[in-house]
């Protein structure tokens, strides 16, 4: 095991330095060595002249990180948060869960200090991860349709399936999800959570084949957002087997939305017919009154 003996980094990342020192106390081979290697090589990023000569040792750490030269703080945070998810059902969306997650990676529980105490980042990370999973799923389905291996779904079924797939990702965490929802509504979280919500809805419509470039673009997304949010709330209260009440609610809401489109068209046609009727009446009156003279 070759370890770089580095003098304290000139631009220390407080967190990494604390963690490195603290994890010296909590050794857990081989996890510790892989995370050590990452911390040691991270400052190397800033001080290239201190890079060790000779072949770089390869570690097969957690997740096969041997090919990475360094890990950014963001990547580290992602790893901690992902590991923390496992502890959410027990501890909720809290710093405790993050601390437990950090422990499984061989880091100090002080790692939780990198994050807000209300668990915001953990929740946002989870939501972002779910959205990515949904996008990947929809992308794969689209590929199958393009290859002709699957039938193209009608819009209402596509929307239902997409929303159901996304909501099912909440099932393992459903007990603590109401807590998460309230945290997402905190003022300092609203920009991020809104952003995540709108991009997810936009993704679903995109894969559903939406090509509107007029105000419909907004109407459709607003409608789907409403469907998603209400279904999510219903799911929180649902105690039926496999949430079948929720899916039935979803089906009804999507059907309503489809009908809304039809109703809007009908209203427009009726409106046009009425206008035409009035115009016809006006012309008739003009004729009768002898006012319709050619100029």
């Amino acid at each position, binding site marked *: 095991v070759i370890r770089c003996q580095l003098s304290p980094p000139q631009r220390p990342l407080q967190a990494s330095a604390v963690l490195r020192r603290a994890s010296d106390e909590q050794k857990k081979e081989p996890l510790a060595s892989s995370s050590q290697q990452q911390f040691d090589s991270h400052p190397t990023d800033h001080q290239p002249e201190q890079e060790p000569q000779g072949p770089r040792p390869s570690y097969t750490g957690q997740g096969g990180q041997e090919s990475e030269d360094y890990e950014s703080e963001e990547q580290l945070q992602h790893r901690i948060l992902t590991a923390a998810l496992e502890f959410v059902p027990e501890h909720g969306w809290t710093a405790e869960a993050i601390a437990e997650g950090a422990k499984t990676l061989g880091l100090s529980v002080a790692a939780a200090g990198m994050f807000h105490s209300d668990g915001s980042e953990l929740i946002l990370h989870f939501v972002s991860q779910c959205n990515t999973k949904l996008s990947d799923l929809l992308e794969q389905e*689209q590929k199958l*349709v393009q290859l002709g291996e699957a039938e*193209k779904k*009608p*819009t*209402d079924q596509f929307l239902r399936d997409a929303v159901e797939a996304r909501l099912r990702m909440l099932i393992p965490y459903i007990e603590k999800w109401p807590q998460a929802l309230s945290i997402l509504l905190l003022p300092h979280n609203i920009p991020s959570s809104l952003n995540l919500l709108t991009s997810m809805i*936009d993704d679903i419509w*995109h*894969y*559903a*084949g*939406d*090509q*509107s*470039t*007029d*105000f*419909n*673009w*907004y*109407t*459709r997304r607003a*409608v789907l957002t409403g469907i998603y949010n209400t279904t999510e709330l219903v799911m929180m209260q649902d105690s039926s087997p496999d949430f079948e009440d929720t899916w039935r609610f979803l089906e009804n809401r999507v059907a309503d*939305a*489809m009908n*809304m*489109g*039809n109703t*809007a*068209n009908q209203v427009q046609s009726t409106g046009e017919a009425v206008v035409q009727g009035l115009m016809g009446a006006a012309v008739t009156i003009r004729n009768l009154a002898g006012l319709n003279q050619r100029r």
Partner: protein
Amino acid sequence: SPAGGASLRPCSTRVTLEGINKPVIDRIIRVDHAGEYGANRIYAGQMAVLGRSSVGPVIQQMWNQEKDHLKKFNELMVAYRVRPTVLLPFWNVAGFVLGAGSALLGKKGAMACTVAVEESISDHYNSQIRTLMEEDPEKYKELLQIIKQFRDDEREHHDIGLEHDAEAAPAYSVLKTAIQLGCKAAIFLSERI
């Protein structure tokens, strides 16, 4: 049938969105789409008033070109996954009113409006071309080509307007300044909202 009717088709055209400067491209496509939409409505308004006059065919021909432009930007908007401006319903009405209003001032009034708008649009396209050239001419080759072509078309419309005595319109310079100010405001807003 699905909400909104006809514009749901299988998700097909997609340019690769990796590596492009999304915020810049978003703005460009959004504002250009709004511009072509507005131009369409302006010509529609002019045709409503002057459709049966001697300049009818000229306006109709320019309108047809704008329709093609709008169609192209609709495609680009879907391909780059750009959000349209919220103000579209407003430009719908405002464009029509501007077109009809200028046409009520007479044929020269309509032509003056055309000159003012087309000059604004071609200046605007020029600055977008500069922006894209500064970013990366190779990466945005297709988009640049399209914008250059459209800029040339708009310049042509501008020249046609001048040929048809736009400058003899009543209060030509006041009209032109006012319309161009409106265009600047429309561009500013459509880029952002």
